[in-house]
């Protein structure tokens, strides 16, 4: 069985995360730019005299498909590397995957990731 571990992190945490994740033997991932909206207070900004709060924060979504048995370890790594302790650190969500295929070879299953 495989799982997709999806985490929302701060932009500045990406490099550390990738390095650590690779050490775990996870060799691939996908990064998407997202706008996150959460409890994190937007900074009060001023543009030409108008104060406004930016509620959408630029975040990164990192997706990794991994064998189920690595999920716990991976969650630990993510929380470790991406935590600052301030509101806005992000979330981790885990999903089940039905199938995984490597396009290059057509092979299926855990060997794919």
């Amino acid at each position, binding site marked *: 069985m495989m799982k997709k571990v999806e985490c929302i992190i701060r932009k500045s945490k990406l490099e550390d995360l990738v390095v650590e994740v690779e050490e775990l033997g996870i060799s691939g991932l996908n990064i998407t730019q997202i706008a996150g909206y959460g409890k994190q207070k937007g900074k009060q900004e001023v543009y030409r005299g*108008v104060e406004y709060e930016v509620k959408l924060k630029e975040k990164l979504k990192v997706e990794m498909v991994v064998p189920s048995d690595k999920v716990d370890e991976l969650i630990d790594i993510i929380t470790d590397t991406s935590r600052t302790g301030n509101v806005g650190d992000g979330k981790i969500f885990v999903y089940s995957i039905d199938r995984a295929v490597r396009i290059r070879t057509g092979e299926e299953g855990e060997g794919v990731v």
Partner: protein
Amino acid sequence: MKKELNVLLLVVLMICLSSSMVWAAESTAESNAVAIDTIWTLMAAFLVFFMQAGFAMVESGFTRAKNAGNIIMKNLMDFSLGSLLYWACGFAFMYGAGNAFIGTDGFFLVGGFEHLGLDIPLAAYWIFQAVFAATAATIVSGAMAERTKYSGYIAYSVVITGVIYPIVGHWIWGGGWLSGMVDFAGSTVVHSVGGWAALAGAMVLGPRVGKYNEDGSINAMPGHNLLMASLGVFILWFGWFGFNPGSTVAGTDLSIASIAVTTNLSAAAGATLAMITSWWKYGKADVSMTLNGALAGLVGITAGTAAVNNVGAVLIGALSGILIVYAVEFIDHLHVDDPVGAVAVHGVCGAFGTLMVGFFAIDGGLLYGGGVDLLITQAQGVFATFIWTFTTAYVLFKAIDAVVGLRVTREEELEGLDQTEHGSVSYPDFVPLHWKSVEINKNE
């Protein structure tokens, strides 16, 4: 060979065609002086032409990516249609022989312009005036950005360059009833006219969707490219060295040097003080306000650039730089939505700068013991220009609105004018989204 032939051919042509031109096969001090004045006026005109690029960059930089192409089209047409209109009738209305209100002779540059007493070719004088006329028109484009129907804008543009601006110009520069005021390079004639027309336009149009909330609070709509806006400001500053010193229309008039210096000092003071004011008011040195500050200093000094000394220039610039910050906020709080600050920069600072001549003019200024006469004359001109321009522009925009429509639909505005008015987007390879400018705080 070819060059010589051409030159010969041209000599013949010139003699046949030109009425107001001094020409000499043999160089004399007089012919050289005319040549100097001519190349000075032309180079200055070229620099002022280049300001069109500056306006296009400032205006599109200060607005959203989805309307960039529309801004380009408006600026390009302001100048293109403007050139043709100013040739057809604008110049005649402004500088043609006529009465105290309007010129009535010289359409298509055909007719006598001897009363101007030009030493340089009429063509040189015309192109210098034409680029000024187009500047007045272009100022308005920014204030009406992001929601104006293209066809409606075109209609406006034709009228301002062809009629509204030339008439004010006639009053002040063309020998009309306001000839007594000091507006050397056009704080009032050019900038205030643009600024007040912009005010009328923004009022008739109403604000952009999402700009003001029901409770009256204001949302920021940040411009999409501050780097381009800054390039625009640098280009405008560069062009202003044609605008002000060029207004001597004479390179043999050595005051061009001190005019260049007062222009520069005022702009520098304007940028500096706007920067400091925004820093003090908002806690951070605001980029777009500082850019506006430089323009404020330039607009402010334009009337008095040849009449004040360096200290006066620095003070006018500094005051304009402070004023602009408050003026931008004030206009926004009136819920007049002017995306680029055109009303504040050109209207308010133009009027302010014209009045300041009454204080700072070495000759006739209040602070130099000249009494209040000049100040009153200046105020009169400022006031008359406001009434005339605002009224005619307001009526014009209302008329356009009734006939062809002045504003796009809400859906078109949300989609962006590039797409809906011109059928293409300006940045197809990038994916513009207004994350930073999305306002999620309404109703909360």
